């Protein structure tokens, strides 16, 4: 965004102002997405659980659907006494909810909300998929700290279970996320999203049977890695009181919940970008209306806004499915959780990874389009061009600059 402000002559004079503004606006949007999202999701959770259990859910606060119920909850939490057990490790006990929340929030920094020439992303990382998977896994650290520092055996057991679960589910989650990376040839989420442009038949979930299976495995593992039922062993009420947050109350407790809902949204958005076309709608309406960067800057930005709406809708649908699953399925036992991961998710993910590799090798044009010799030709043409680029990518000039930089750093006297 700073680059956008500078390049389009709004703030070319003061780049520092552009960078500061961009940072402030981005963090404003991200914090609000997580916080307002949590407000909405907690209300949705109540309504959905109510309907599934043949109740009405909240009906009174804020008019017809009880849509201000979460605000009332928040007020109640604010007025609660901030308790801490006597034997607790004070510093760690106090800081644990913030660690969880920060980890959940940082994942949003690298999630693009629209692509194109000026992608709507706070931090355009080249290895965004990897970064997000790494950061989402950090949320467990706050949980472990909370469980340990509470000086309560229920908390400690909850934290232990969560650590075991998250560590084991990261394996199939990573294997599933590798499949779209393989298809797009990039770990950049902007590239992965843009490769799926133009109609739902281009989405990676419909690319071949292997990716279709992979998507469901990914969704299962994502549900497990954010500790939602049926995998919510860490806070199993019937066994562990409330698991790792037994001793928490008030605002600290609510930070854990904001982190949980933030992570749910993050993994759903990641699933949307990796498999469900990201900001590309089922029908390329923005493209038909000409809202692309070829027609001008502001057209493209308008199209990007539509794309953001698309992506957030997909993410909210993903979160809704997680809630639906939560209130439908019973909780698994801890051995069943680990069995699901190691005996089902990992082998299925591995086999579908191999299948997708084979498919990409044998049928690069898909099943319905005849295969052409061009489709079979290997993309890595760097071998024929000894001096320049590793890949004939769009950033060829950038690669050239890198080559020069490398050669000069090999010979330092050339620098000075």
């Amino acid at each position: 965004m700073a680059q956008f402000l500078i390049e389009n002559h709004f703030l070319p004079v003061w780049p520092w102002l552009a960078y500061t503004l961009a940072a402030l606006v981005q963090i404003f949007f991200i914090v609000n997405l997580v916080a307002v999202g949590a407000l909405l999701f907690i209300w949705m959770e109540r309504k959905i659980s109510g309907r599934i259990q043949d109740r009405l859910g909240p009906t009174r606060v804020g008019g017809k659907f009880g849509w201000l119920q979460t605000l009332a909850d928040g007020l109640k939490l604010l007025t609660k006494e901030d308790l801490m057990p006597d034997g607790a490790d004070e510093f760690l006990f106090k800081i644990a909810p913030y660690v969880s929340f920060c980890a959940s929030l940082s994942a949003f920094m690298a999630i693009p909300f629209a692509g194109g020439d000026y992608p709507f992303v706070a931090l355009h990382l080249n290895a965004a998929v990897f970064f997000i998977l790494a950061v989402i896994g950090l949320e467990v650290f706050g949980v472990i700290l909370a469980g340990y520092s509470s000086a309560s055996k229920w908390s400690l057991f909850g934290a232990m279970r969560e650590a075991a679960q998250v560590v084991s589910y990261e394996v199939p989650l990573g294997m599933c996320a590798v499949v779209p990376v393989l298809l797009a040839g990039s770990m950049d989420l902007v590239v992965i999203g843009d490769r799926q442009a133009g109609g739902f038949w281009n989405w990676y979930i419909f690319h071949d049977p292997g990716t279709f299976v992979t998507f469901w495995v990914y969704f299962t593992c994502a549900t497990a890695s954010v500790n939602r039922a049926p995998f919510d062993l860490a806070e199993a009420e019937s066994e562990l009181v409330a698991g790792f947050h037994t001793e928490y109350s008030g605002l600290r407790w609510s930070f854990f919940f904001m982190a949980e809902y933030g992570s749910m949204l993050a993994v759903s958005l990641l699933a949307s970008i990796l498999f469900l076309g990201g900001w590309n709608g089922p029908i390329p309406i923005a493209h038909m209306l000409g809202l692309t960067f070829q027609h001008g800057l502001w057209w493209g930005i308008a199209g990007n806004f539509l794309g953001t709406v698309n992506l957030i809708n997909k993410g909210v649908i993903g979160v809704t499915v997680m809630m639906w699953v939560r209130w439908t399925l019973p909780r698994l036992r801890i051995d069943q959780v680990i069995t699901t991961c190691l005996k089902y998710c990992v082998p299925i993910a591995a086999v579908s990874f191999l299948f997708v590799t084979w498919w990409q090798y044998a049928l690069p044009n898909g099943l319905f389009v005849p295969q052409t010799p061009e489709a079979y030709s290997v993309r890595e043409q760097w071998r024929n061009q000894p001096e320049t680029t590793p890949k004939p990518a769009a950033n060829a000039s950038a690669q050239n600059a890198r080559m020069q930089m490398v050669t000069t750093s090999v010979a330092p006297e050339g620098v000075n």
Partner: protein
Amino acid sequence: MDAPIYWPSVFFFLFAGLACAFALAVVISPNIVRMAFYLVLSLASTAGLFFLAGADFVGAMQIMIYVGGTLVLLVFGVMLTSQDRFISMKTSAFDMGLALGVGICFFLLLWYAALSVPGWRGITVEQANAVQLQPTASPIGMGLLGARVDAPDRSGYLLVFEIISIHLLVVLIGAAYLARARRRKTLLLE
């Protein structure tokens, strides 16, 4: 406004200072779980340094492997094994002095090594601004597959990569074999 602040340097000193401060806190803190916590923060600040240098793949790797994996396991192990007398450890003055001596020696070695590099001051601000940030993941991947883009002869690290992969696979299988629950045949016979 004659000399504008060079923000990358500011952030470098911020992250470097945080990494050093938390590393010191690891040494000074007597509580073993807090040590692990400070270690996580120190390693995360190091990841911040990598991101600042434009090596986002290595930075994410640092978060994934050190901050995420190792420390979850460390805390796991620490929390499972720490009995009362190990939770808070008092370091004796002799140990502290010994560690200080070794630390100072190592620091001097690093200092000497850093100064002996001809271009240790790095490049000027103008040169730094001229450098464009490059994707780091694909050159690393190409290098591991035996085709370095920055070497003239394209010599890569395919053999090393394969050996390490096989080694890790063996370690994983061995760990699974050691950790699996064995059936007690003798008990069944009785």
